[in-house]
């Protein structure tokens, strides 16, 4: 297919546009289906699958990110004799950026892929069509509980990531590198604002929860119903979700912290 041929170009543009339209329509159907929350046992099972099972990888990653940040900031600030400020730097960078972003990337890899593969295989096995035959809406019965489960789980995971990261930074800075514990905490508490830093970080993580879960579900729902198609859709989930999270993060940061 060559893009110099007007017919091919038109076909590509039209198919992209219709992809976009289908995606937007699915997003709207998921959003407007707050009734999905009414069947709470379904949502609860998804929170269990997406949230509880991701807890270990999120907590361990947070711990190591905190360790590394403690070491790097200590090294950088040592030459200015400002090593007490490591605490505030760790807490600000975790709450504002790293917590939501790294959690979203890990969540896309850990939970998003499994969502895509599950939905894609359901489609390939014609389970979704079978549901439609029985007058059960697969978007309401299958997709919506997964969507809300992911949206609920993501902010919690991000909060756990930040908390464990700060504890990890404390472990490296206070007992290992010998920064005074009082200065570490008091600088952190003076420099971190509940609404501006923590609140905006939570908003970010909620937005990323919507993004990652929706991308995963859309890729699964629109996958070619073949083994190859499902595998491609799973790969696309990670790529598209990661890029979307990073781009959205830039936009959100520019909006929230520009002043």
């Amino acid at each position, binding site marked *: 297919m060559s893009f110099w041929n007007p017919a091919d170009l038109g076909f590509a543009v039209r198919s992209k546009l219709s992809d976009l339209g289908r995606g937007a329509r699915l997003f709207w159907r998921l959003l407007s289906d707050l009734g999905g929350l009414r069947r709470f046992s379904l949502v609860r099972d998804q929170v269990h699958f997406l949230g509880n099972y991701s807890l270990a990888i999120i907590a361990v990653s947070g711990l190591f990110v905190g360790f590394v940040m403690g070491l790097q900031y200590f090294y950088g600030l040592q030459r200015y004799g400002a090593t007490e400020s490591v605490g505030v730097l760790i*807490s600000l960078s975790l709450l504002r950026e790293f917590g939501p972003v790294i959690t979203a990337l890990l969540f896309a890899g850990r939970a998003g892929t499994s969502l895509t593969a599950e939905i894609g295989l359901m489609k390939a096995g014609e389970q979704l069509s079978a549901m439609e035959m029985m007058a059960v809406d697969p978007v309401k019965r299958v997709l919506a509980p997964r969507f809300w489960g992911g949206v609920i*789980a993501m902010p919690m995971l991000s909060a756990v990531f930040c908390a464990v990261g700060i504890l990890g930074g404390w472990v490296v800075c206070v007992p290992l590198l010998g920064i005074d514990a009082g200065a570490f905490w008091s600088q952190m508490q003076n420099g971190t604002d509940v609404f501006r830093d923590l609140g905006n970080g939570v908003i970010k993580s909620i937005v990323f929860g919507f993004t990652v879960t929706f991308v995963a579900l859309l890729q699964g729902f629109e996958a070619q119903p073949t083994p190859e198609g499902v595998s491609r859709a799973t790969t696309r989930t990670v790529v598209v979700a990661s890029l979307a999270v990073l781009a959205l993060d830039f936009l959100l940061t520019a909006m929230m912290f520009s002043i």
Partner: protein
Amino acid sequence: MQRSNNDIWVGLFVLIGAAALLFLALQSANLLSLNFQKTYSVTARFDNIGGLKPQTAVKSAGVVVGRVESITFNDKLFQADVTLALQNRYSFPKDSSLKILTSGLLGEQYIGIEAGAEEKNLQAGDTVTSTQSAVVLENLISQFLFSKAADGTPNASNAGAAPGTPNKK
């Protein structure tokens, strides 16, 4: 059986998430220091506020007694109107004076209140005019240089003294 098990685990997960948020709010963002106490606002006129920003601390004897609420420019007097929100439980005499101070050599600026001697206290809406502006380093340096120059001209040995410099500033 399966269901109740899931319930417990999801409940635990939510609990861990809430605990993490609580930890962040209390330990790192220090929610407890947020004041939801009532405040009264007092306006102060400064010639120069330096790098003062809204939300800066107002301290008396080193203790935080309020925050800077807003800073506007008064184009009648060509001064800065700084609105302070002082906590209701503290009251200060009417003739208290305000200074813009700096914590440490390179630290951030704050407003210090020095209590006066008058019987009456500052009320909401009062204006404080006995203020001392922020120290602007450039002015300080130029003052220093001029006074050096004034001292040095008779000897003519001071390198900083330009020949044309007037004796009096």
